[in-house]
């Protein structure tokens, strides 16, 4: 059956206004990809192009002394290199504190442990919890399972060294946005299936879950916004190579492939109504409910991918920013 695809939902007016004047500050991923060529070279070019966009050099990770920030090199997956964890401990909360284990975004191909971290430190300060951010290897240089295995290894280390870090191993929430949301969901699946750490919750912000890249929303929003179907294709191909979209993709690469979503920690899922990932996010939540699981879902009208981080002052972004805070407060409440 061939669907007639409807027109894209309009962007929220404030988001549209911000985009209208963003100009050269918006990375033009479509243009970068259109150049074609070797995936590794393209990924490197993307990283250069997006460096300014993804990194805020002025961000104060200590939040004016509220956090002590340190880095640790810890054991990676079996036979793989060590990984770096960035650890932010609140100074004014007595240990052990809860912890947000943070997995950054960037389409599986860009970003580092600092990407998007500042947003989480704000809420962590409010709640008096620590944040541990993992530096995982990126595709295409390091295809699946390298990224998710790194995330899982960092999680294991964090839980095993909880006492040393002054965190409570029974109060770990795993969190991430975009590709980080997908890796977060995958890490939660790994933790369940391998009998790993019990997690208090999984926070999936506009998560990248489905390598098949052919949902209605992906097709409806093709060519629109920061991370459209073409960009998504690049990210998934980088992670999975020829296996992308085929019959044999692991749920730990693309959580939408999991056939059993029961027994997972409570999920928070949000997404914009005007983005590629809308339908896969809604579907993932629906399947958790159908398995008798716990999930909170928010779909924000007229939101493009990553809108609340990119245009934080807009009214819809403020509302979207409040929702995970309220959820974390409930989840992490003593």
């Amino acid at each position, binding site marked *: 059956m061939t669907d007639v695809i409807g027109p894209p939902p309009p962007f929220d*007016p404030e988001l549209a206004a911000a985009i209208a004047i963003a100009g050269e500050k918006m990375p033009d991923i479509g243009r970068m990809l259109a150049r074609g060529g070797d995936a590794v070279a393209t990924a490197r070019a993307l990283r250069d192009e997006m460096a300014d966009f993804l990194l805020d050099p002025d961000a104060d990770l200590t939040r004016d002394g509220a956090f002590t920030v340190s880095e640790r090199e810890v054991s990676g997956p079996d036979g793989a290199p060590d990984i770096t964890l960035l650890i932010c401990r609140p100074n004014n909360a007595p240990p052990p504190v809860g912890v947000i284990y943070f997995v950054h975004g960037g389409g599986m191909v860009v970003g580092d442990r600092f990407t998007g971290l500042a947003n989480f430190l704000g809420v962590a300060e409010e709640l008096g919890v620590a944040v541990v951010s993992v530096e995982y290897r990126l595709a295409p240089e390091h295809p699946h399972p390298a990224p998710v295995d790194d995330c899982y290894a960092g999680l294991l280390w964090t839980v095993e060294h909880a006492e040393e870090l002054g965190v409570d191993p029974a109060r770990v929430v795993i969190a991430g946005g975009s590709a980080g949301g997908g890796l977060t969901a995958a890490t939660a699946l790994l933790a369940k299936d391998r009998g790993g750490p019990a997690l208090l919750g999984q926070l999936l912000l506009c998560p990248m879950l489905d390598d098949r890249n052919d949902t209605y929303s992906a097709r409806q929003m093709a060519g629109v916004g920061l991370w459209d179907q073409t960009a998504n294709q690049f990210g998934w191909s980088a992670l999975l190579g020829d296996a992308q979209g085929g019959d044999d993709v692991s749920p730990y690469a693309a959580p939408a492939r999991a056939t059993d979503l029961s027994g997972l920690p409570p999920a928070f899922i949000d997404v914009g109504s005007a983005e590629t990932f809308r339908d896969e996010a809604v579907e993932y939540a629906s399947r958790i409910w159908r398995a008798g699981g716990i999930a909170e879902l928010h779909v924000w009208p007229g939101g493009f991918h990553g809108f609340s981080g990119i245009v934080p*002052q807009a009214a819809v972004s403020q509302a979207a920013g409040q929702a995970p805070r309220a959820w974390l407060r409930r989840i992490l409440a003593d």
Partner: protein
Amino acid sequence: MQELVGRLARVDPDAGAAVKVIAYFDRLVEGRAGLEPIVRGAAVLAGCAARLVDEQRRVQVRIDVHGRVRGDIGLPDPDWPSAPLVQDGPPVLWLERGGPAGPVDAMVLERAAAAARAVLERTRGRSKALEDPASVEVLFDAAVAAQTRLAIAHRLGIAENAQVRAVALINEVGRVESADGASWPGKRRSTDRRAGIGPIGDVVDLPVSWSGARTALRFTAAETAQDPGPRIVHADQLGGLAVLADVIGPDTDPVPDVHAIERAKTDAPWVLATLVAVATSPSLRTAATTLRVHHSTLQERLGHVEHVLGWSIRDPQGRLRLHLAIAMWRLHQR
């Protein structure tokens, strides 16, 4: 992640900054954003808190530099830069800036005030008498003395030196729109969103604009598979096609090319959409993208439809002929 909007206040007051301010508020008006987003835009672009206080309408909005609504509103400082809603009126919009003015303050105030005026007029109490569509129709009537039309425009609240245009709609009376987004009668969502837009000009020239708008309306389509084509057409983009509208109508005899379109249309459901896409796309490849079919599918279809039409539509001459045939076909409808 950096805020996209940034702080234009730190930017030199060059043409680029002015253009951005204009673009920002234009998009808000286009998206029918309310007062809060407009005041928020002023605050964020100017880099200081902003407020709107309209005593007469009992409206007050105060937004801080981070875009948050603040209830704590005291008296405005007379030294703050401010703008009235209408010329020579009392100030209603303030930037809460002590010290030297920012480089884009004046532009921000002007555009935000214009946008706020449009919202206030739309939403807060224009009296019913001013909504009388009959008054608007008089403005379009060239037979009515220019003095009378100006007097009625004045009563409707259209400034004498305003730049305005006529808008023709299907099954509805026409309306007048000003360059800053105000509309008479007030904007309503109509079920059929097709519109012909007349050229912009002085109030006394509205009859000319109205005639252009009605011509433009005849070139509109429903933007559906059955009736593909643009829903909104601007008279001043018609060029020579407008001449065709004078000589072709529902009662004139169609030329053979129009019969060819009619024949092709009944041949298969995809034909009309395909023809319109080919006539209006810069290349066959973009036409294929618009139609969401593969390039080779399009080529196949074109072969078929050219056979039915009887001429090639893959060369410039044939495409011009096609474009004219579609335009004429449409003009025969109404």
